[in-house]
């Protein structure tokens, strides 16, 4: 009898198993859970050590603060000094079609907004992660004390940069130094949201609205309160994520990709998944940029200097005529992550045609290229009509155009700095610059849908992309109809 008792328990368990196992086996499961959990790739935010009671001392200059930082973070400055945030110039690399290795960066190249930082350090260096870079003296890139720790780490309410990248007048450096912590959106945004000289001017997808973003401005920063470094992950002060404009060829390892966290084929719809090999995530999920603040879409330098009514969005005497637009629908180009061409100072232009300053690389035959959205900025900017190259005027610097409104002196002043001869003759030529649209990401509910591209009034010019016609009816580049 005593042996029987455990036996019926075995029986009961047996019965339970007989009942439960088949139920579990037949239990309805959700159809193929393909998605990985993107949250598992998002870094956890460590609580930053409060420096309020750690930092002490009298700080007269930014470099004083840096010295204090280096007392504990000895290797930090050295790390920063190897990043483009400090060098403003890429490592030299060889590019097909050019004689020697080239470098690209704000330090030596031009764009089609304010054109050139060279010679204009007084203003431009407010976004340099260092101190005291002046146009008339060589800058010591190897001096750790030149590194500005505060611009990325201090509370942006307590710190700002002024001329030549030095702390702005009246900044309480001790208070700023005591406020340091991991960079937040406002730190990055203090420069990146103001590219081109104002809120959202340059990028279109990076605006001050992202400091405190509503959920519909960007699904990551808004709806999910991401900070920049959640995606632009950082090691040794080297921040991941760069696209064209200030680079020529980008190592894919350096790029931030949606697929760092999201599975590529996560869409429930087979048709949409089939798009992934040809269409970048951004194409559908960044349907438009400049969602809250308008962005500059054209800048005509040729009208500068005139006595016209001034307005930030239409005309400034120092800069010329602008067009700003909101809800800008991007241009769609093939893009494999690199540039096929980047204008370098001294490159010849055809003044009667359009000079594309940065041509995204890729075409329909390039399987690594995808259709990608770009904000296009069109400018009329000065060039040397004799030498047929674009000119980099001194604008903000002493005696620059913004003071004298004399182009000739602005170009002449620049000669020794850029090393480009000025013939004395200038004109204005049309230039285009493409800015990849990759922020202001929208969730599925606000993403593009079929007819946004595949319809008579769709937003993509198929023939320009190399298709015989709409691939919905003509077949795609990988699946022929």
């Amino acid at each position: 009898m005593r042996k029987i008792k455990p036996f019926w328990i075995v029986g009961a368990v047996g019965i339970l198993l007989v009942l439960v196992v088949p139920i579990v086996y037949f239990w309805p499961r959700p159809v193929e859970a393909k998605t990985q959990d993107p949250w598992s790739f998002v870094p956890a935010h460590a609580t930053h050590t409060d420096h309020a009671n750690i930092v002490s001392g009298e700080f007269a200059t930014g470099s004083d603060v840096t010295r204090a930082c280096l007392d504990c973070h000895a290797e930090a400055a050295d790390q920063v000094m190897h990043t483009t945030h400090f060098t403003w110039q890429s490592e030299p690399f060889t590019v097909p079609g050019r004689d020697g290795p080239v470098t690209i960066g704000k330090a030596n190249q031009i764009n089609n907004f304010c054109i050139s930082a060279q010679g204009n350090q007084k203003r431009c260096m407010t976004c340099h992660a260092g101190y005291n870079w002046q146009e008339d003296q060589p800058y010591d890139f190897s001096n750790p004390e030149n590194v500005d720790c505060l611009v990325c780490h201090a509370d942006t309410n307590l710190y700002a940069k002024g001329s030549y990248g030095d702390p702005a007048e009246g900044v309480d450096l001790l208070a700023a130094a005591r406020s340091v912590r991991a960079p937040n959106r406002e730190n990055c945004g203090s420069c990146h949201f103001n590219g081109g000289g104002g809120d959202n001017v340059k990028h279109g997808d990076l605006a001050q609205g992202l400091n405190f973003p509503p959920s519909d401005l960007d699904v990551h920063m808004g709806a999910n309160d991401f900070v920049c470094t959640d995606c632009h992950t950082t090691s040794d002060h080297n921040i991941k994520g760069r696209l064209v404009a200030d680079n020529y060829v980008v190592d894919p390892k350096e790029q931030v990709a949606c697929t760092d966290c999201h599975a590529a084929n996560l869409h429930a719809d087979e048709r949409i998944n089939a798009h992934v090999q040809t269409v970048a995530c951004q194409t559908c999920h960044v349907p438009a940029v400049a969602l809250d603040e308008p962005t500059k879409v054209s800048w005509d330098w040729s009208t500068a200097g005139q006595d016209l009514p001034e307005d930030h969005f239409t005309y400034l005497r120092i800069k010329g005529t602008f067009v700003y637009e909101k809800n800008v629908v991007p241009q769609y180009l093939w893009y494999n992550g690199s540039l096929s061409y980047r204008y370098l100072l001294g490159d010849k232009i055809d003044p009667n045609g359009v000079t594309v300053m940065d041509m995204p690389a890729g075409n329909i035959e390039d399987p690594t290229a995808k259709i990608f959205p770009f904000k296009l900025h069109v400018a009329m900017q000065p060039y040397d009509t004799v030498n047929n190259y674009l000119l980099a005027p001194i604008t903000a610097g002493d005696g620059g155009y913004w003071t004298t409104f004399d182009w000739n002196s602005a170009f002449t002043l620049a000669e020794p700095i850029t090393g480009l001869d000025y013939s004395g003759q200038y004109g204005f030529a049309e230039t285009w610059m493409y800015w990849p649209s990759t922020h202001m990401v929208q969730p599925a509910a606000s993403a593009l849908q079929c007819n946004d591209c595949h319809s008579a009034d769709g937003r993509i010019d198929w023939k320009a992309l190399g298709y015989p016609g709409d691939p919905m009816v003509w077949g795609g580049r990988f699946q022929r109809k």
Partner: protein
Amino acid sequence: MMKRLQNLKFHTWGIAGGVLLAALALGLGIRLASAGRLTVQEAQISPLHPTFALLDTDGANVLESGSPVSTMKTCGKCHDTAFIASHSFHVDLGMSDIQAGNSDAGRWDPLTYRYLLPPAGSRSGAADWLRQNTDRVVGGGPGAVAQLVEMDCFLCHTPNPNNAARVEALAAGEFGMANTATLFGTGIVAVGEDGMLAWNTAAFDADGELLADYVAIQAPANDNCAQCHGLVHTGSDPLVVTSCSLDNPQTAVTGQVISGDKISESGVNLSGKSALARPWDIHAERGLACVDCHYSLNNPIAYQESAATKPEGLVFDPRRLDFGEYLKYPDHNFARGESAQYNVAPELKGTMRRCESCHDAQAIHADWLPYIDTHMSTVACETCHIPQMYAPAIQAYDWTVLTLDDTAASSCRGVEGIGGSVTDLVTGFQPVLMMRKNVDGDTLIAPYNLITTWYWIYDDAQGNTRPVRLVDLEAVYFAGGQYASKIMDAFDYDGDGALSETELRIDTADKQALIAARLAALGLGNPRIVGEIQPYSINHNVAGAGYAISACRACHADGSRLSQSMQLADYVPGGVTPEFVDDTNVTASGTVYQSGAALYYQPDPAADKLYIFGYSRYGWVDWLGGLFFLGTLVGVVGHGTLRYILARRRGKPTVETKPVYMYEAYERFWHWLQTSAIVVLLLTGLIIHRPDLFGGLSFRGLVVIHNVLAALLAINALLSIFWHFISGEIQQYIPHPYGFIDQAIVQAKYYIQGVFRHEPHPFNKTKDRKFNPLQKITYLGLLAVLFPLQGITGILMWGAQQWPQYAKFLGGLPVLAAFHTLVAWLFATFIIGHVYLTTTGGPKALDSIKAMVTGWEDVEVHEAVETPQKKK
């Protein structure tokens, strides 16, 4: 060297981006101002259509004659326009059917308040008719209209036809000008300052042929169809809806809007809009055009043979019209669906591409939808994939009264507000589900909007019943452009000198009598109100999977989608209950009922012979079953209480017992497995039967548990039967006929009397003879009757997925499910009795249950009434 290389570099990237840049560089001049936007594709120029001369009716070039263009002559140069006109229900408008007597003398259309009569044969009769029906006529017919206006090819085959100018010309009686007016605004022709036609010679080449840039001939685009049919929206401006305007008839009667735009991005003031990130119509979003499904019936690309006539096994018949032949003789009868109305060309109903022509519904739903065959053969795709309409639709037209703008008092469903304003709050509406009989004989539940109309009829001198003419109605209501004073006296309750919406309705006998009297005074015999309900089928505005109905509970619960009622009207004019029109393919098996002032239609799935798990049930089954169950419960509680009281009075029984190994391990395992399965089956069955009483449980999951356990139960039963046969234990269940009734009476007496007195059991319980006579008969009944019945009905209900014919043979789900429920009640009843009777088995109440657990039972030692059987 450097320069050379750089040039080379330019060259290289120039080629790489060459195609692109060439295109980009085209519109350089305007680019700065337009912020570098790429120009969108140019207005489509026909890639292949040759240039041609515009000819007048005499065949002369219009540039020479200055006359209006003749489409029959111009297009007829290459296409057989006579063939086209004679093969087009758009031209015929169904009138030949009427003339052939296939339809009544022209349908009465209570929405437009006129008869859809064919035009008179005479030229002047046709002209009157044409002036009245301008916006519904494409020309070329019907009948004598062909002599007045040619079929207007431009209306459907050019991108921006000027329909307004065309309608204006027709209304003005300038019939010959109508088709030419369609081209106003294209730059080809205009009305000159002298009022004469002015053909723009710059649009023509030296030979008098249209320049290629002006030849924008195309297959009809959605916008072309929209001109007459309903709201179509393309382009970037936000979509707005004018509530219930008959200018967009399809949209007005059904709420259907053809647009690929997301509803959330429309300009409609729609409640809950932000959550509707789905297109109005998924097919429009995915680039389908009207003509993709409603194609020309001899179009060699689109034509598909109907499944009914196609030989089995033939997937595709490649024998098609030659393209040239098709272009010469394009059939302008278009494939069409199965609208509820008689409409034009009923013989073409069901010819179009329907959902299943493109989608494999079985495959799409295979991974989650149970009873696919049942669902697909009962439920039209639209039912789940058009869950809700997001534009208003007409609810009722009350022509028993007239508003000051000479129309019916009407109401619109799915909208709140003053009506007709873009600020009205649109709420949308759920279509009502009704049975549609397809031309192929299938009967499916499909979504509809119901429009109810009331109007006065009278008997004319010939004894025919006719709707009261509008002029008579006007004479009754109006005097000098205002309501007649008698009308104001009777209707204007608040005396404010105007009739509000609630005043202008015939809601009292007095008002009704007044209008009837005034109609009679006009000489109309026996004027009275009739009401009719017209269903309008809803087939567009399809939602993709994410927005379709997919929750089982939507239908399989109380308040099932299939039983959802629809409001017909806010009030009932003259108290006249409207009736469904009878010439539709829709079965209105539900009831029309009034609740408060408002009138509703309540579908009745049971009347359509539908049994919907979780929704359908028969009251009497549950009452009867419940009665068994409760009766037994009351019985055992009473019996047990009595035993308990008597036992306390008499003290513990002193019976000599001895332990006997009564149940083999397998018997116990078998028994308890059966027990657990049955209990869980009863519980899950109850929840499936009444999901409304058990919120929050997964209907789907419960069905899975129920099915799996039923299978286990069946396997267990089969194995145990096998064991019973092998071991010979089966004999224990077979009552021996001889003396059985006497023995049963003895046992019954024991339960009625002996058990209270602690008398010994009348029959000895031994391992070989466990059951008393009553147990034998009960278990036999259980095993031989209830189990098989429940098993068979259950298997057939489950099997209706695979072999519906067997279920159908036994009356289908309505019979099987009712039976299954009743037997379930009997099982529950059995359990009550069975569990209770175990307490009578031994000296102590739980002895028998313990025995079934351990196998050992304490049995009484006493003289047996019957000699024990010999041990084997």
